[in-house]
């Protein structure tokens, strides 16, 4: 095998060893037709009880894990910005009591453009959020309407400015491409408007028509065309070119940032670091175990309300299972964990380290995956040098061809 003279891609900052914390807010004013996340419209009445339950869960985890260190916190959803700011503030206070939150922690909030005026932006900053991720999705009003979004392009631009004025110096902007009926020209326009806003971070997501969503039905009925995969590829390549030209770093398949403005919380996922998800349907990876919280907000609230005061289990996960809020999960095999590590890590420009796989999971990557590596390298899908392996940028669009080589076929259940 040729060892090549390729230059090892630079690392994306120092890996975070602390426990990342994800907080799920399962409320939306309306549900978008393409969305299959665990979120609900028309259950606002549950918000007060929900906030209490969430605080309760956070307190329990904090106690069970002996007030763990955390360097990144991410409020996702759903629409976290849909919650009253004082509720978000209460949850933040609980986190600060139950967890050892680093003074330089990245604390992110997902926001809907329609939910932000200058005053609210300042309040969010004041309760501790220092990064915001704005779900713009498109700057084309027609496409926004098709996506079921409640904002228009003007509101989106205003929202970014409001966050800026409110003191946020780390802003992400989400755009979607490969939409039904979206032209390359419409996409170029949206991109240009995004670039004008000069955010620190940009995420671009190709639309996936998820099973059991209203959009799937609409497309099946033929009321909207199925997106053209080739056109979506052209859109992606156009974005790569334009973002790079103005100095964005393309550090993950769907993510770009200004120098050093990586999404630190997401980097924990991609590098298979440890994270705890609280709230219904949240996912966790703690101590080599992946698990998911029950999906129903109502049952979640009930379970925490009726939870006894003292858990009898000393193991943290077992104790939470006793309460009845853990839906599934268990230990994965080393090879499964290694496969997940590859699937996530190869999304990054820095790729993965075989030495790290060996240390973490006892799996000898170059030997055990010899055939796959050889085959992928021969077709230009995988590069390596020293102990690092990565997918060349020009093959990111067919990343699944690489990931699927490493996936474990017989152990798809754990989790």
């Amino acid at each position: 095998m040729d060892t090549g003279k390729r230059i090892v891609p630079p690392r994306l900052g120092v890996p975070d060893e602390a426990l990342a914390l994800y907080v799920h807010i399962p409320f939306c004013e309306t549900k978008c037709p393409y969305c299959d996340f665990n979120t609900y419209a028309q259950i606002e009445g549950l918000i007060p009880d929900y906030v209490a339950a969430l605080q309760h869960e956070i307190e329990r985890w904090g106690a069970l894990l002996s007030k763990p260190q955390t360097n990144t916190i991410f409020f996702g959803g759903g629409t976290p910005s849909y919650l009253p700011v004082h509720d978000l503030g209460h949850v933040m206070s609980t986190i600060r009591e139950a967890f050892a939150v680093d003074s330089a922690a990245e604390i992110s909030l997902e926001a809907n453009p329609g939910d932000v005026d200058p005053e609210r932006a300042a309040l969010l900053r004041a309760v501790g959020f220092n990064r915001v991720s704005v779900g713009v999705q498109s700057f084309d009003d027609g496409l926004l309407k098709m996506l079921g979004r409640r904002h228009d392009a003007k509101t989106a631009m205003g929202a970014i400015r409001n966050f800026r004025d409110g003191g946020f110096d780390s802003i992400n902007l989400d755009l979607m491409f490969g939409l039904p009926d979206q032209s390359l020209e419409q996409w170029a326009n949206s991109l240009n408007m995004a670039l004008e806003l000069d955010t620190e971070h940009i995420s671009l997501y190709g639309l996936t028509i998820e099973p059991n969503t209203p959009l799937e039905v609409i497309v099946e009925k033929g009321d909207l065309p199925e997106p053209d995969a080739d056109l979506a590829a052209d859109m992606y390549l156009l974005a790569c070119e334009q973002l790079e030209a103005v100095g964005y770093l393309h550090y993950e398949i769907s993510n770009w940032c200004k120098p050093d403005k990586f999404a630190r919380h997401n980097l924990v996922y991609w590098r298979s670091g440890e994270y705890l998800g609280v709230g219904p349907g949240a996912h966790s990876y703690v101590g080599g175990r992946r698990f998911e919280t029950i999906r129903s907000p109502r049952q979640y609230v009930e379970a925490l309300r009726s939870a006894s005061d003292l858990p009898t289990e000393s193991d943290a996960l077992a104790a939470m299972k006793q309460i009845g809020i853990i839906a599934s999960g268990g230990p994965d095999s080393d090879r499964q964990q290694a496969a997940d590590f590859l699937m996530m890590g190869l999304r990054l420009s820095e790729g993965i380290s075989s030495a790290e796989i060996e240390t973490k999971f006892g799996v000898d990557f170059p030997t055990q995956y010899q055939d796959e590596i050889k085959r992928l390298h021969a077709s230009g899908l995988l590069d390596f040098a020293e102990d690092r392996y990565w997918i060349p940028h020009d093959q990111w669009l067919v990343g699944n061809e690489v990931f699927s080589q490493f996936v474990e076929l017989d152990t798809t259940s754990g989790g």
Partner: protein
Amino acid sequence: MDSSLIRNFCIIAHIDHGKSTLADRLMQATGTVSDRDQKEQLLDSMDLERERGITIKAQAVRLAYTASDGVEYQFNLIDTPGHVDFSYEVSRSLAACEGALLVVDAAQGIQAQTLANVYLALEHDLAIIPIVNKIDLPSAEPDRVAAEMSRTFGFNDSEILRVSAKTGKGVDEVLEAIAFLMEAPRGTADAPLRALIFDSKYDVYKGVIAYVRVSDGAVQRHDKIRMMSSGRTAEILETGYFSPEPLGGMALGSGEVGYLATGFKDVRDCRVGDTVTLDASPAAEPLAAYEPILPMVYTGFFPVEGDDYPELREALSKLQLNDAALVYEPETSGALGFGFRCGFLGLLHMDIVQERLEREYDLNLIATAPSVRYRVRMTNGSVVDVSNPSDLPDLAQVQAIEEPWVNLSLIAPERYIGAIMELVTGRRGTFERMEYLQGETTDSNGDSRVLLEYKVPLSEILIDFHDALKSATQGYASMDYSHDEYRAARLVKLDVLVNEVSVDALSLIVHFDHAYPQGRLLVKKLKELIPRQMFPVPIQAAIGSKVISRETVKALRKNVLAKCYGGDVTRKRKLLAKQAKGKKRMKMVGSVEVPQEAFMAVLSLDR
């Protein structure tokens, strides 16, 4: 048993006309099975048979019936396979009987299979008891159907029984008719043993179990028997009959039907159609001339995973234990590697074998397009049989290629004559004759039904003919065929190239006149079936070195999961596993991943 009280009979019917339900009802009415044990279609023991509602293997069951004269009769009901693929087995079953119940659906009337079966029964000189079944159906027209039967077969209306096997109505009359209208078996009790094998199956403990009808003499445990055609001998481990569970320990005398546990390890030692005699005092002549069954349809079975080849060989040999009609030999394909060329009685037989291999032996198989057996006359005067298109000799040395033709009978309402004519002549068929089945009577549409007879090349009806016929006649037509002669035709080999490489497993032998349109359709279909790869893949159809059609599968440009939301890794993992599993089911042809369905593409061309 006094052989004058024995009645050996079978039930003949078109598929779904209620043969198995009537059999169940007869068993129930004679107390052979209790009501409690009654499960639908008792005689169809294979799961596949129950699922598909067809009988694949013949079965025999003994019923004791006390008739209105107060005498107890011994009935032997021999269930016959209902499908044209198994007509050889049907004829062996008929040879073991003196009578037949002819069952016709009261709503559908006579169908092609009814006709074929009646002719077979007449050939075997059987007493036929005509039955109009399913008279409980709202759409039943018993009188019209009876009139159709009278006209077509010459029955008197009074002898046609009106029955509902489902509700039990008329079943007593059927039992009485069997006792009084059918003849007792003729045979000589003190002559040397002669017993006809009409089916066999393999049992792990007792070896091959032969289902027999004893004509002369008797047979019991410890007798040393001899197969008259193969000469193989064996000592009988057990004799008995089914009721419907096997009951051992009874000798079988003249006229009786039952089973022999032979201890043979291979069904081919004990073929359907052979005559059993005693080794010590053999009979002079067999009961019937033994004819080996010849496969009509051939296909290649290849394991998707090359490592599964030994398992495939093992599975085929096990299936063959119970299926003497299945033949196979090793085949090597440039595209698919090592596999087996298998011969079948027909497409249904092939389907069943493939399904059993996949279901019971957990094999992941690629089946290539089915082919008939061609007879190739070489310029040097020799003749070679070719059942695999890739074995076709160099045309320079070929004088003529001959293909098998069949006699095709179709029954359909008159209004579909035009559509059927068009369909069959498009398949190179030639019209032979036409006959109206009814005189004055018409069906509910005021339409008469007609019998149409054609001669047509077997290869033309092999693939999608039955579906095409159903759609051309809105499901009203039924078909049956029997083999005719070989005829020379202008046949060519159509090759397919995927990414510039000829794929032997996709080659077809087609008539020259059809080669161009067929090549075009095939290439188009393959373009739909072969997924996009990392590079563009040209697909071409060629005759010899001449490319007659071409399409290109565009290169894959985008295949990546967009988003990992909130650390949900398991979901991503599942999506990728699904993709990876899909890939695993594909076969690498050169550097191209080809899905299994592509090798059967020719089955789904819209012509």
